[in-house]
């Protein structure tokens, strides 16, 4: 199992699943076409991250620091910290929501989950952590099963992929941004490159890692595709109004059966926990290493105060905020995806600057086609984000 697959699975987190299921519930089969361009963009971007990691042997945050100096790096890290905090909030709100589906109150579920995350990272050993991750990854298949159990109209699905009917109203565009923002998340680019560096993959294995990155991009989109499909076939077709994943799970019971509903809820809990284990820690690592602070779980608090402060701070603050009874969970999920979408073009531009630098990449600089696809992604996402800002101001 390579970094591409793990990254892809972490990518379908609480924010992702919420966005996809709302997309299917509100727009039916209509948005399925977006997965084709998203697979292409995600595959290209993941491949770039893997290539940069293997050729330079450095993480993205390190390369940004060495390319543009400390001022831009600092700004980028502050932005990433904020966006990732939004994502961590989203993961814990996902835990709260899915615990609610199983009837567990959030003031019990959240501290338990936070403790689990902390223990897994600090006290767990390599083998057991790997097993947990493998299990978590395979659980994503539950969405594909749920999609089948929902008995979708395959003809209609194929038609909307091949001959999309795109509408231009605000709700539609907002949903598209949400989907792009959650599928091609900025933290993910940092994460995949770091995993490649961490594994110490050598240049000779570049081929395999590329395949892994592209395969991962396809897998993440297939799982997402089935989430949209399941909701489109049941909730949209029956005209039911839903506002969050709990509504979706409840609505699935009479329409697709008890099992599909349970699978959906369980997949959601798993996804939220999985991402909550990884996001706070990786964020603390990027920030510390690019700014030259001491980092590492095996180091004590006195040795690495900034690192531990960031890591524990992200988790504890997120748990406290989500515990507030009247906190609007859905808005948090949604806003975190918008923050991703707004940050994405800037991360991509920096990636393009670095990957086209012969001093860093040597003969492995980007091809013209790759530059074109990633530039197109930058332009489209920037356009969509600007559109969103403008429409929300009007």
């Amino acid at each position: 199992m390579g970094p591409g697959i793990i990254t892809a699975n972490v990518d379908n987190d609480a924010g992702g699943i919420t966005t996809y299921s709302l997309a299917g519930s509100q727009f039916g089969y209509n948005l399925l076409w977006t997965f084709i361009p998203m697979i292409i963009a995600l595959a290209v971007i993941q491949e770039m991250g893997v290539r940069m990691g293997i050729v330079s042997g450095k993480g993205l945050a390190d390369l940004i620091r060495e390319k543009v100096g400390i001022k831009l790096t600092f700004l980028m890290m502050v932005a990433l910290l904020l966006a990732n905090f939004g994502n961590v909030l989203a993961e814990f709100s996902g835990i709260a929501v899915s615990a609610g589906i199983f009837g567990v109150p959030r003031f019990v579920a959240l501290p338990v989950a936070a403790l689990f995350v902390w223990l897994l990272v600090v006290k767990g050993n390599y083998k057991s952590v790997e097993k947990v991750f493998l299990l978590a990854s395979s659980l994503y298949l539950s969405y594909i099963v749920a999609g089948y159990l929902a008995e979708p109209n395959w003809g209609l699905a194929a038609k909307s992929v091949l001959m999309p009917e795109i509408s231009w109203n605000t709700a539609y565009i907002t949903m598209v941004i949400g989907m792009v923002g959650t599928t091609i998340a900025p933290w993910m680019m940092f994460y995949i490159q770091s995993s490649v560096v961490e594994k110490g993959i050598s240049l000779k294995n570049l081929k395999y890692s590329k395949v892994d990155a592209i395969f991962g991009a396809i897998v993440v989109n297939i799982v997402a595709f089935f989430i949209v499909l399941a909701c489109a076939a049941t909730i949209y077709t029956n005209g039911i109004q839903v506002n969050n994943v709990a509504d979706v799970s409840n609505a699935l019971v009479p329409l697709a059966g008890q099992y599909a509903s349970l699978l959906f809820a369980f997949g959601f809990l798993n996804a939220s926990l999985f991402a909550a284990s990884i996001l706070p820690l990786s964020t603390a690592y990027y920030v510390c290493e690019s700014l030259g602070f001491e980092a590492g779980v095996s180091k004590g608090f006195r040795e690495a105060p900034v690192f531990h402060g960031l890591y524990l701070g992200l988790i504890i603050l997120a748990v406290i905020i989500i515990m507030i009874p009247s906190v609007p969970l859905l808005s948090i999920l949604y806003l975190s995806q918008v923050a991703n979408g707004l940050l994405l073009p800037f991360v991509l531009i920096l990636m393009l600057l670095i990957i086209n630098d012969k001093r860093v990449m040597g003969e492995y600089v980007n091809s013209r086609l790759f530059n074109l696809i990633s530039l197109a992604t930058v332009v489209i996402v920037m356009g969509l984000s600007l559109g969103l800002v403008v429409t929300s101001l009007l």
Partner: protein
Amino acid sequence: MYLSDFIKKPVLSPKGEKVGKLKDVIVSSDHSYPIIKALKIDITGKKTINISWRYIGKLGKEIILKYSLEEITEYKIQKHDILLLKDVMDRQVVDIEDKKIRRVNDIKISPTNGHYHVIGVDIGVNGILRRLGLNRIAKPLGITSSEDLISWKDIDPLKSDYSKVKLKVPKQKIKKLHPADMAEIVDQLGLNESLNILNSLDDESAADTLEEVSPERQVSLLEGMDSQRAAEILDEMSPDDAADVLADLPDEKAEELLDLMEPEESDDLRKLLKYPENTAGGIMTTEFAYVDQDLTVMEVLDALRQMAEDVETIYYVYVISKKGDLVGVISLRDILLSEPDVKVSEFMHTHIIKADVMEDQHEVAQTIAKYNLIALPVVENETKLRGIITVDDAIDIVLPTAWKKRVPRMFGR
């Protein structure tokens, strides 16, 4: 004074007109505290030029030239010159003594005798604040810490290229570090940097370091380096460790390296590689002390002196019959306490605790723990001695050294 005080500051002609901005500072690495030799200047509306130090009148918030641009001939960058901003600023520094990886946040410069010397690199919070322009705000708020400076004379580029990793300790001193400490640094760095460090070590130290590195990293390091060099390092590694790495490599690569190794070493390894990884045969080493059963204590001592260099432990000496069967074991204590002319067969222990080559490694560890052994002989077909497993290998089975630091690393850098 710091480099960040000068960078991007205006450059003025002798008449006081602004002609450009300072882009970079060129120093010579010949000196242990490098002297500023030239300034790289962005001329307004034109390209950049390098101006030799002798044309510079004043270096400060403004840079004043002694002559007008027309009178200045351009400085040519020489082999040992370093561009401070491009090559040093923001790069990694490996603090080998404290096993930390830090970043150059600023560079300290000091004027002495009319020359400007680079004194060291700032790796502290102050450097970050200064470069973000926040130091004036931070001071009244009390966010100051003591200066965190690495002296330039303690810095050594790993390659002659300064843009690569810099070490706090000069290369010559690396060898004095314990291999386990060295391995911890190699594990933390990126693959390319780790390779640079290994390549700067001699075969023996590189082998000792590699033995302590985490298994995944061992594989990529060997794949990443030149095959000939990899084979030389494998020659120096103890056979059980070398076999473990080779077993993890793709078959083709392992075969290539075995062919490049010295025949004596590679024959041993090929034998070891036959056994599955988690069995006694898979973890044993073939370098053990053994003697013929007819030898006297005197002769055994002579034989031991010959073997001592190459074997894993000399505390247990195994006794072999004429037919090549394992018939006994003697400890160093037994030898020292016996008369010189007694034959070993007269006092050797014949009740031998041993393991079969196919026995599970955890059972082996338990046996070693149960009988408080320093090493356990490994046999094939009941009596043929194939290797030994030492107590430190047994500890590795029960307590894998690498996991504690690997867990967090798999989440990100």
